């Protein structure tokens, strides 16, 4: 196993042990958020990192999942798990459609088309009051039980952990499988990949579709965990940027990167929120200013993120005379 894999195994093991040692709900809550954000960024990474389809509209799929789960349980009194499945199905269709339609687009054009897609869904969710309750949002009542996803903090930790490990493994698969190498080829030089007989368009659509489904699944879980869904938040560009931000800071196109990014950014957010919460309204925005500045600095000076920096340091050590 490489160093990255050991680090990941260590982090997941630590997450699994935390509820055994700590019962403090603040810590458990932070842990759940770190795992969910890490999983969400991994989902983004499948399209943005591995296939090079950089999306700024992944909130669309997150929102689809969140609304599917919330509406299934609130409006139809069915299990949110069923809603999760519905959300994944819808996101497969939506992801396939947007992936197919935006197939030829590159760089900023692709990003713009995904933004437009998320905006359309935001408007539909805000205006279709009869079904989605419009911009007021949908409160999700807490009904205890596994079937209704009314879980305790400890149960949530393990559920989020299972999802996080699953997403991590999906990424590992993309790093080592034939399909993964093909995606890397598409990302680095599409014409060359095409010339080698890789079905580049199909691979790109597949990556975006898979990424959409994974994002939707976490969106459903998030809605049930947080207990509230509203269109302005779940379809926002800020959210889409957040998915990308974790991956970029941790290391875009690596399996560990999104989780490292999530640990850093989520703890930073929690810390700053707690610090500034007593101050005048709007000071909550301070951590977002820091995000923005960090994002600019990272893409400028360390575009490979934390895992990239670590790899560079390791190489340097290996080169140094003993």
């Amino acid at each position, binding site marked *: 196993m490489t160093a990255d894999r050991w680090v990941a195994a260590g982090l997941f093991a630590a997450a699994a042990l935390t509820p055994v040692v700590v019962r403090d709900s603040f810590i458990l809550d932070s842990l759940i958020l770190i795992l969910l954000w890490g999983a969400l960024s991994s989902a983004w990474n499948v399209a943005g990192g591995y296939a090079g389809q950089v999306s700024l509209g992944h909130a669309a799929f997150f929102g689809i999942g969140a609304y599917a789960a919330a509406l299934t349980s609130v409006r139809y009194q069915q299990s949110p798990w069923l809603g999760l499945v519905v959300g994944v199905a819808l996101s497969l269709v939506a992801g396939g459609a947007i992936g197919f339609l935006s197939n030829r687009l590159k760089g900023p054009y692709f990003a713009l088309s995904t933004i437009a897609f998320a905006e359309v869904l935001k408007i539909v969710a805000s205006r279709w009051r009869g079904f989605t309750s419009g911009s007021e949002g949908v409160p999700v009542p807490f009904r205890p039980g596994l079937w209704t996803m009314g879980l305790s903090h400890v149960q949530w930790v393990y559920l989020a952990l299972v999802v996080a490990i699953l997403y991590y493994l999906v990424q590992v698969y993309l790093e080592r499988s034939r399909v993964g190498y093909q995606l890397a080829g598409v990302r680095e030089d599409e014409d060359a990949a095409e010339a080698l007989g890789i079905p580049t368009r199909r691979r790109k659509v597949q990556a975006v579709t898979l990424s959409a489904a994974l994002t939707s699944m976490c969106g459903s879980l998030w809605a049930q965990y947080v207990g509230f869904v509203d269109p302005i938040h779940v379809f926002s560009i800020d959210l889409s940027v957040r998915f990308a931000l974790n991956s970029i800071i941790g290391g875009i196109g690596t399996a560990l990167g999104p989780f490292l990014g999530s640990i850093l950014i989520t703890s930073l957010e929690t810390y700053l929120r707690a610090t500034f919460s007593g101050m005048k309204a709007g000071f909550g925005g301070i951590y977002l200013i820091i995000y923005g500045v960090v*994002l600019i600095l990272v893409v400028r000076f360390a575009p490979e993120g934390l895992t990239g920096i670590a790899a560079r340091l390791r190489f340097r050590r290996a080169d140094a005379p003993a």
Partner: protein
Amino acid sequence: MDPAARLGPAQIDVVAQLAASAVLLGGIYALIAVGLTLIFGIMRVVNFAHGEFLMLGMYLAFFAFTLQGVDPWVMLPVALVIFFGVGLLVYVLVMRGVIQASHNVQIFTTVGLSTALQNVALVLWSGDYQLFRPWHASVVLRAGSTAVNLSQVVAFAVAVLLTAGLFAFMKFSHTGRVMRATAQDRDAATLMGIDPDRVYRLTFAIGIACVGAAGVLVSPLYAAYPQAGLQFVLLAYVVVVLGGLGDMAGAMAGSLIVAAVEVVGSYVFGTAWKEVLYFVLFIAVLVFRPAGLFGQRGAESLGV
């Protein structure tokens, strides 16, 4: 409705009002879009933070009016100078380092800038909607049954003047020629003794000055708040892609089309759904004619 009655005087009035509103709106969109398309055309960077400079322009006008009683029309030349300076500063601090970098680096640099600026505004000035009414915002001009607001007319006129001025500058001045040469072939331009860094600095500053001025012009018409830029900039993307990224004349045509879609759409479907209409238009254009209505086919897949 009886088809024979369709073209009665009432319908002609409606059409005239819709056309007037579309043209006035289009002029303002053009000024926002022209800076975006200029920056893209010369620097090959999509400025995702463009809307935030519009928002800053709106706040500048708001504070000038509420604190000092300065009319936005008086603020306009001041704003042009201030935002030109802001553009230079942002170019030197942020953009210069990524001008040669990959698309992804450029996208996330400007996205980061956008997040940072939005939240600076949030922290400094809170998330409240700030609207002020100078005298000209309440003056209504009438021609027949078509009514328009004086702020809107002046905003339109100034926007068209500035856009036309920029257009002429790019087309006829020596500096404009130098800028276009750099856009066409950076290496050849360098060999001719052109300093691309200076060209980019000037381009970015002009683009930001345009959008800052647009912010001042729209301030009597729309409320300022930290995310105010977003709705406009999304429109500007639609406009710019419609016209072909980097194509200034296309951007003007695109503005009129988007404004027409918006005005007619809100008349037919109601204001609630008009936005869906232009985003659907946007996606359709990206899918079917990503190089814009008048652009060369294939530009989008070259990544230029």
